[in-house]
């Protein structure tokens, strides 16, 4: 009996420690890279490294002395959820990805994001790993989208306490009851919009600004509206600091869209909607695409693609349940974007 209790204790302890170990891994990767790091981050990592190592030693001692077999079973669990397989994967080189021939912007004076902020040089391999596993591995085929996700430093958009899980495949709370969408959904929605360097995008629901940044890597201009002023201000500040000169943030009611800057080639609504605001339909260009989650803010939601034909008639197409990302290799055929 005691043995089984200890196995349970150790297994759960190891699971908790796993979170902390990831920070240590980040640190090791960080040392390998030459990019800078903000002043507080090493202190935080150091603190958690000490705690984690101490806990790890304790857990290992328990496991070795009392329940030697528990580590084996844990290993099997990892293998089952695909993480062990990932460990054997060769690191992905960003430059090796097949690059789709980019359409050149018509206007040569367009503002492009600057990538001079130190955050872009940090945690590059984690982003590459995230894209390989959760984006490309889950069926996203647009190389421009993959490249955008490899470029945008997601860790710059999360709160300090969540830095360690910035590149995991799940949403992360950003305060005020809002979350930063999981990378797969960001990629999926961006791919569905079929953006090119001439695209002008309207986003409703800026949140942390991450989705806008991803779109800004591909499109010409991104106009984003956030109803919560506090979030709008912080996202604006963050995006400006990161050098996203082609993103324009406004604190306003997204229902009305941004009439002065419209019409738009693509509209992305990142907050759940029970209906589609008529002004947004009007601000969508003929042949334009709009993607949004259907449903209540905290209930069941389905991603829906709205298309507008040349005559202005609108159609919808249900895509997949949102908020939660599929695990690697578990994307059903039905969940992939329709070719049409």
């Amino acid at each position, binding site marked *: 009996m005691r043995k089984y209790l200890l196995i349970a204790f150790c297994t759960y302890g190891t*699971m908790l420690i796993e*979170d902390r170990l990831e920070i240590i891994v980040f640190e090791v990767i960080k040392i390998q890279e030459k990019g800078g790091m903000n002043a507080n981050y090493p202190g935080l990592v150091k603190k958690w490294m000490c705690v984690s190592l101490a806990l790890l030693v304790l857990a290992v001692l328990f496991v070795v002395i009392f329940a030697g077999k528990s580590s084996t079973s844990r290993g099997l669990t990892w293998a089952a959820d695909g993480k062990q397989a990932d460990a054997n994967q060769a690191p992905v080189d960003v430059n090796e990805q097949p690059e789709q021939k980019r359409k050149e912007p018509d206007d040569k004076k367009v503002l492009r994001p600057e990538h001079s902020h130190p955050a872009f040089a940090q945690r590059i391999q984690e982003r590459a790993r995230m894209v390989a596993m959760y984006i490309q591995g889950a069926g996203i085929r647009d190389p421009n989208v993959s490249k955008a996700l490899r470029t945008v430093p997601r860790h710059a958009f999360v709160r300090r306490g969540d830095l360690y899980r910035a590149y995991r495949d799940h949403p992360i709370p950003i305060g005020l009851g809002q979350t930063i969408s999981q990378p797969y959904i960001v990629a999926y929605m961006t791919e569905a919009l079929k953006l090119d360097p001439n695209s002008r995008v309207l986003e409703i629901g800026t949140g942390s600004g991450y989705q806008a940044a991803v779109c800004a890597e591909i499109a010409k201009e991104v106009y984003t509206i956030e*109803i*919560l002023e506090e979030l709008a201000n912080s996202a604006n500040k963050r995006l400006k600091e990161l050098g996203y000169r082609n993103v324009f943030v406004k604190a306003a009611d997204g229902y009305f869209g941004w009439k002065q800057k419209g019409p738009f080639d693509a509209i992305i609504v990142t907050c759940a909607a029970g*209906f589609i605001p008529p002004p947004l339909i009007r601000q969508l260009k003929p042949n334009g695409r709009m993607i949004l989650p259907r449903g209540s803010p905290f209930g069941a939601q*389905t991603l829906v693609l709205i298309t507008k034909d040349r005559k202005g008639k609108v159609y919808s197409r249900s895509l997949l349940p949102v*908020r939660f990302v599929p695990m690697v290799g578990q994307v059903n055929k039905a969940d992939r974007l*329709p070719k049409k």
Partner: protein
Amino acid sequence: MTTIPIAIFFISAAALGLELVLVRAFSIGHWYHFSYLVISTALLGFAAGGAFVTIGSRLLTRHYAKSLWGFAFGLAVTVPIVFWISQNVPLDELQLIWDRRQILWLFAYYLLFFIPFFCAGTSVALAFTIFAGKAHSLYFYNMTGSGLGVAAIVILMYGNPPAALLLIISSIAFLAALILAFGVSRYFVAATFLCALAVILLFGLAGPVSLEVKISQNKSLVYYRALPDAETLAVRYSPLARLDCVQAPTIRYFPSLSIAYQGRLPRQMLIISDADGISAINHFEDMNDLDCFDHTTSAIGYHLLSEPDVCIIGAGGGSDIAQALALNARSIAAVEMNSQIVDLVRDKFGEFASGLYNRNDVRIIVAEGRNFLQTTNQFFDIINISLLDSFTASAAGLYALNESHLYTIEAVKQALSRLRPTGLLSITRALKTPPPRDSLKMFATVVESLRRRGISEPAGHIIMIRSWATATIVVSPQPFSKSQIENAHKFAHQRCFDLVHLPGIEPNDVNLFHILEEPIYYESTQRILSAQCESFYRNYIYNIRPATDDRPYFFDFFKWKSLPYMIRTLPRQWLPFSEWAYLVLVATLLQAIAASAAFILLPLLIAKPIKAVRAGKLAALGYFLLLGLSYMFLEMGFIQKLTLLIGHPVFGVAVTLVGFLFFSGCGSLTSGRLLRQTETPKAVNLIRLAVLAIIVIGIIEIILVTFAFEWLISFSRPARILLGLVITAPLAFFMGMPFPTALRVLNISSRPLIPWAWGVNGFASVTGAVLGTFLAISVGFTILMLTALACYLLAAIICKQI
């Protein structure tokens, strides 16, 4: 001894009241699934008291006065403290699957709520141990205390927030502690009094520590309150729900609006029930402001009939009434169960609602929808049930998994019978994430109702359309005419709605505007209408077989067959999307069984006095286990039947619980009088006689509430409440006899088993509540009640072995 039963009365009242208040608080603050899981486990604390007393009986009985006081005092103090701590536990149910720390927080919830129930359970078990000879009298106080506790808390829930109710419960427990303190010393009396004062000052409504329910960030209310310039204009409390009226310039709630609609929208205010369920109040100057309601799927009925007399089930904030007015309804009868919603829309926000509830052509009826259809003599052209999920017994604080009496075959049949020959029943449901289930189950229910009315070709009587977010099913007792079919076609096409079913529909008519990979709605409805519907129900991934009154679980879509699919989609769909409620029930049952086994077996292994008892342990285990299970099964069965009869979940639950607990107490007292001198053979005979009476009365009453229902429902509501009490009284009276009588037997034969037996009975009650839900879902309430009678029979057979 004289004061102890009174103290037990108050402790029992506080414990049952606490259970109800916690369920209410959880429903407001968190997801329903977790409240079920946490509270049912916490309740085990009540029964764990029996195991604790068994193990520590020597010490506890030696200082019983102080011990009793201590646990009563513990209950009083821990109620507010534990609740306050729980509101500061950062549990985020949405993150449970990704953030492992959340499992710890969930476990913390278990532990916290276990404590007060453990204190209550220990004091009652200890009282039974010490005064086993007066078991009948104690049981009377225990049961009547529980019954009156339930009644008092349900009444107090009208208008009082959980914070106030918790303080009341704490005060009741302090009263019990004060009574017990007089039996110890005056210092204890003073200490109890001072502590009670401190708790009230500390946690009181004006005190520094707030017991307000913290609402999870995953509920809609938090989102709407955060909108710019959002104002909460009113908050109302009742046993049905907490209502928050929120207004903000940016609020727009039009869940079934066509994507083709380009017109204006009326200003709105939201009534949010239990921080999640939304109903909108619309402000309009003239009927043109309500044009948007003509662009929802639920408007189709008004394009098939002109100037109809309309009945709206679930009026809420009045959107459906506004729609009916805008679409030229001649008269409107609007049924709303929650009188507080009616008061808000009619009086407090009457001006904002543009006098909607005060119009001459609008009649507001405060009633439960199904009950109104059962009792009204009126006939309508259109009965509209739109985006409504009826309040259920679970919302009133019971162990139920969202049973609904509005979406059963019998309910649809009832609604069809209240229509004029050319009338329409219109039901609108929100579309769920694929694969579809909710709207298909509704379609299947409608088809089955028509078949039961003797219509062999139901296809000609049904029209179903869908938008990107909702589906509306329109059903008529007569086949639709050619012009009606053309109108439906035109209505759908103009508004970009897709046809799902229409008499004479062709495959190329479907999936045109809201495109799915495959026309799954069309294909599924055709299968349901075909002769092979049985095989379709059997093979479909979700349970879409129509619900019945006996198994009123419309929202149960779970099938064991679909478990691999659910597990595969778990990381993507998690709780808000999947049909996990049934699995939560499984988890709860497993938890309850595991905890019960541990607490039942532990005393057997380590308590010396029990070890010393040579015989009768197995029989006692079986007997008290069967009693606990059967009592709970019968209680649950009658709650369902009486809720349907009385027509209001709160009254149904209150009448059943009060009736069962109070009359059981009376039965216990009477059996004590009958058994002045305890002789085992006499006691056994009494138990067997009582069981015989339970079985006979039980069968008669099951037949009565099943087959004479139509006659019983014809009485007025006060008469039906009285009838409910009359039905429960004789059965509960005899159900109160077997437990205390057996305790009296144990007092002679194996006294150390008394607290253990109390614990076994308690565990059986908790496990029985979960197991009963399982049985009700699987085999229906009638079989559940018959199972209870069989359990009583078994208990009577083995009672001689105790």
